[in-house]
């Protein structure tokens, strides 16, 4: 498609260049204002065409590798430059036409007739190029080809105006006022031409400034958010902008962690599809944010605190871990917790298990342990990742489960992020009791990068990871203070 557009623009430039000299000779000999202004138009058209041709050529040859986000901005810049050149040319012509209205002259009849013939041929060529470029723009709209078909439409009308003006001037040359026909026609044409380029210039400027979409399109986005209202739990905003002929829309939503991933994806797809249907050339990106905890925690929730594991809370924390997970013979949560309280206690044994520097925290309410979580370093991957320890939640504490899970997960992300490493990794399994936790992990952006069968072959061990930079955004770490954790 780019090649076809490039060919169309090149053809226009060559035809304009071929017509320039004959029109120049006829304009000088006839003295017609219309033909003079037509010369400016040719100059404008050739310049704008060469710019467009060069840009399309660069894009087609792939000489734009340095643009991560494509060549939309380059197309906009080219379209804007061409349109502005054209508008300046038209303004100059309008000035000449006005001058001729105040200081009219009589045209040379013989050369004016020659001008009529040249304009007629020009009219046919421009009308054909207008139709051809419009067809290309309908197939694949870009600012450059949009600018080109508008330019050819203006050229066609220009030729028509010049033709009519010259014919009328010749036909009515016995009338004293016929001297005004030539400049008045030129003025009408220039005003129309300027008006036709205003939308291209406006859109190009808005694109380069990354201006958001117009209100009509924003309402279409809202309509799709309303249609899918029951599918998401929280709405966190919309960002949109144009990039060339593309419309980029980011929508931030959050979902109920208990919701199945497939249901969540159904909503995401429905939203994307609806917007793509309503807004052609749109690219919709759904940013999934962590679900917000209840806006007004009750008194009991206010009393819960995440604190470092202590000797007093260790037995309860260990009990919680043992009651939540199926502990294998080589799993040693008690060593990890004891090492956390007194570093050096089990350092070598844990190192042999791939664990060093374990840190644990507990979620407490009135001295009761409601949850436990922590991080450690695997010496094998020391520089790149932090690992999540045993994380357990008191599921008998109904009603606040999601909030407690969220708070503990956020604490892990906060502490892991503070180490400056790239990944947070977790080891989980496909046991039914870990299903809800796995939902939460997948929901906030963890992916399973490795799966292993357990020694007895009864279940699978799932190794999950997520980039901490991503998790920091999901949990909005930049907006919370350490004391709020």
């Amino acid at each position, binding site marked *: 498609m780019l090649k076809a557009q490039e060919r169309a623009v090149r053809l226009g430039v060559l035809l304009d260049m071929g017509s320039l000299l004959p029109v120049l000779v006829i304009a000088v000999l006839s003295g017609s204002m219309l033909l003079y202004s037509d010369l400016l138009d040719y100059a404008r058209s050739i310049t704008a065409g060469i710019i467009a041709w060069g840009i399309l050529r660069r894009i087609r040859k792939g000489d734009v590798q340095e643009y991560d986000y494509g060549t939309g901005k380059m197309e906009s810049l080219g379209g804007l430059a061409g349109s502005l050149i054209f508008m300046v040319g038209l303004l100059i012509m309008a000035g000449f036409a006005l001058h001729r209205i105040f200081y009219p002259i009589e045209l040379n009849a013989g050369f004016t007739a020659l001008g009529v013939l040249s304009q007629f041929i020009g009219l046919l060529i421009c009308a054909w190029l207008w139709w051809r470029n419009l067809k290309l723009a309908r197939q694949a709209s870009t600012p450059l080809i949009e600018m080109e078909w508008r330019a050819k439409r203006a050229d066609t009308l220009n030729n028509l105006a010049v033709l009519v003006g010259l014919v009328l001037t010749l036909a009515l040359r016995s009338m004293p006022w016929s001297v005004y026909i030539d400049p008045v026609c030129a003025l009408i044409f220039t005003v129309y031409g300027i008006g036709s380029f205003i939308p291209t210039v406006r859109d190009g400027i808005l694109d380069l400034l990354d201006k958001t979409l117009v209100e009509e399109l*924003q309402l279409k986005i809202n*309509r799709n958010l309303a*249609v899918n*209202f029951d599918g*998401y*739990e*929280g*709405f966190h905003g919309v960002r949109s902008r144009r990039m060339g002929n593309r419309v980029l829309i980011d929508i931030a939503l959050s979902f109920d962690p208990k919701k199945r991933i497939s249901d969540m994806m159904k909503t995401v797809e429905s939203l994307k599809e609806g917007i793509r249907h309503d807004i052609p050339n749109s690219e919709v990106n759904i940013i999934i944010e962590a679900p917000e905890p209840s806006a*007004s925690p009750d008194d009991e929730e206010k009393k819960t605190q995440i604190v470092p594991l202590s000797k007093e809370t260790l037995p309860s924390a260990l009990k919680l871990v043992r009651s939540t997970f199926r502990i294998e013979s080589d799993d040693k949560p008690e060593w990890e917790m004891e090492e956390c309280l007194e570093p050096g206690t089990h350092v070598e044994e844990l190192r042999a298990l791939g664990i060093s520097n374990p840190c644990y925290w507990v979620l407490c309410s009135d001295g009761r342990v409601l949850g436990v979580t922590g991080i450690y370093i695997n010496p094998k991957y020391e520089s790149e990742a932090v690992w999540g320890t045993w994380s357990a939640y008191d599921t008998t504490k109904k009603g606040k489960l999601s909030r407690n899970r969220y708070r503990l997960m956020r604490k892990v992300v906060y502490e892991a992020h503070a180490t400056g490493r790239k990944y947070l990794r977790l080891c989980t399994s496909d046991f039914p009791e870990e299903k809800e936790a796995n939902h939460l992990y997948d929901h906030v952006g963890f992916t399973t990068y490795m799966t292993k069968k357990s020694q007895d072959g009864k279940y699978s061990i799932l190794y999950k990871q997520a980039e901490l930079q991503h998790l920091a955004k999901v949990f909005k770490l930049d907006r919370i203070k350490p004391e709020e954790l």
Partner: protein
Amino acid sequence: MDIQSKTGNGFTSIAIKGRLDAVTASAAEAAINRTIDSGASNLVLDLSGLDYVSSAGLRVLLVTAKKLSRQNGKIVLCGLQNTVREVFTISGFLSIFPVAADEAEAEKSFQIK
């Protein structure tokens, strides 16, 4: 834009006057959030004095509706002028929000359980 709130029988009424657009949306959101944070979960938005609402204004209401639904709360709109109602209709927001003619009618919707 002018926002005033008052407590009614089992609900809090927030009257928004003037324009609710990209310029005033954040102020409106902050005012509504303050009301919700103070414990209100049933809201009546009196829009009889609202002359214009943009897509940004509608999104403030969307955020509020989601926030209240998490707290088992409810939001009812009342007093929509024709121009404002048209924007709600075009954007499909009338399917999200119950609409009452006035505050008295909105109050009834909280009493019916």
